[in-house]
């Protein structure tokens, strides 16, 4: 499979990366080179093989169902959470207006 400029524009839009015409033109052959190269995976007989879900068998744990089970990742850290925000306003993340 190969991609054309319109497809790359669509992918870029899905990925929320603004790309001008020149950037799209340049990306088309680069992506096609990579996609053609990965096509070889189609040769592999995968009959009866389950896609890998975890490299090392491990079960997901449940933490204790208590408030602030881990104080580092628990609540009450509004200041820390907002410390690196480009536009923190009134204790919230500020964003451009989304509703008229």
């Amino acid at each position: 499979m190969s991609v054309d400029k319109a497809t790359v524009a669509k992918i870029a839009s899905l990925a929320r990366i603004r790309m001008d015409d020149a950037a799209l033109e340049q990306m088309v052959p680069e992506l096609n080179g990579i996609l053609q190269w990965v096509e070889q995976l189609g040769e592999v007989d995968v009959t009866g093989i389950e896609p890998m879900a975890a490299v090392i068998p491990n079960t997901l744990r449940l933490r204790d169902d208590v408030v602030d089970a881990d104080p580092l990742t628990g609540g009450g850290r509004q200041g820390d959470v907002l410390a690196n925000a480009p536009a923190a306003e009134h204790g919230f993340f500020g964003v451009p207006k989304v509703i008229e």
Partner: protein
Amino acid sequence: MTDLTSLGVKEIRDGVAKGDFTAREVAEAFNAAVADAAALNAFIVTTPDHALAAADKVDAARASGAELGRMAGVPIGMKDLFATNGVQTTAASHILEGFTPRYESTVSQKLWDAGAGMLGKLNLDQFAMGSSNETSYFGNVSSPWRKTGSNAAMSPGGSSGGSSSAVAARIAPAATGTDTGGSIRQPAAFTGICGIKPTYGRCSRWGIVAFASSLDQAGPMARSVEDCAIMLGAMAGFDPKDSTSLRMDVPDWEAALNADLRGKKVGIPREYRMEGTDQAILDSWEQGKAWLRDAGAEIVDVSLPHTKYALPAYYIVAPAEASSNLARYDGVRYGLRDLPDGSGLQDMYAATRAAGFGDEVKRRILIGTYVLSAGFYDAYYTQAQKVRALVARDFERAFQDCDVILAPTTPTASFPLGSMNEDPLTMYLNDVFAVPASLAGLPAMSVPATINADGLPLGLQLVGRPFDEQGVLNAGLAIQQRAGFTAKPEKWW
């Protein structure tokens, strides 16, 4: 007095404990070496005060007779992929420039708890995506090594290129690295140092900027196998904050080091004899077999039939995970925001990400977005995950016939910066020997073997069974003892 910057982790720790020198003297020596090595561009920011404060704490603890940690008095470099409290953490990307975490990654915290200090945050390929350290927003890192008779700047490998450059240049005795598809082992091989990626889950990923979560693993980079064993012991361990963290005891790898390989079988994967591999690399592989045989091991042929498919599978799986992980950089919660006049939220996302991500990062996000998109998911992503299962099964079968696998780390020695930029694919191929162990989550290490005709280091790779870091370290030690690798780069910086 000996030049303190010539010492490794073990020598520094033991020297501080014995009182041969103070931790402060060590930190001062390395701080000065770091300040003198700006030409390497190995550090994005330096933190001499952090190193000094940690050293003073160790000296005070020693004076009071308190027990010292396993890294006590050792100043290290921290790859700028680990969140460090109060110190800018960028993943070498413009999109995180200025980001100053209010928390500490588990691995870095463990190192500070063990008595280590931080010399600075090390440069890397942007978001750890690259094999040459040429994708950093903060400029290329130079290897301290140069080809004989040439002044061309050489690649330190990637993505942990700041780490490899700093350790090889002796401006840090050790550094942290992370390995997603070879990012510890390949730079270690390029710069004549050691580096080990442990079994997936040994080191907590909490606080490490995520690239491909099913592959990312942290590990140490240092100049000897012993130093790697010591530092890995300080980095590893169960962490409830990482859902894939292994709930297992951390063995005392340092204490159990043993280069006597009698009764061990070393597998030589026949599929690793690939076209395009340098003759000098193949020769060093032969030499490696002889060294391990000399250490008492039996050399056996093994087969890893899906080797050639590992790299293309990786270049679907890793970008797919990256496209998802990197969705968080949206200009809202942290990092860069680009808000063109009069634009709305969606425009802000797209403008921020266009301005913040480098070309290689964008390329991988686009590939990842494409292979996960409706209609292509099964053909690409599911197929790749099935191939990945086959790659892992290959190793499982091979380890029925051997205890550890010996292979080259890379198909070539280091190359000049700028010489491989024509086509992203040629760069990807550099990780052809490293990626299979990453896909299977296995412990793997590179140790320096020899110097090629150009005067550049070559590494050998050891891959072990899941959880058998000890077997990998022991075989690495056997090679280290026989290789007698003492070459070091001549100072030009």
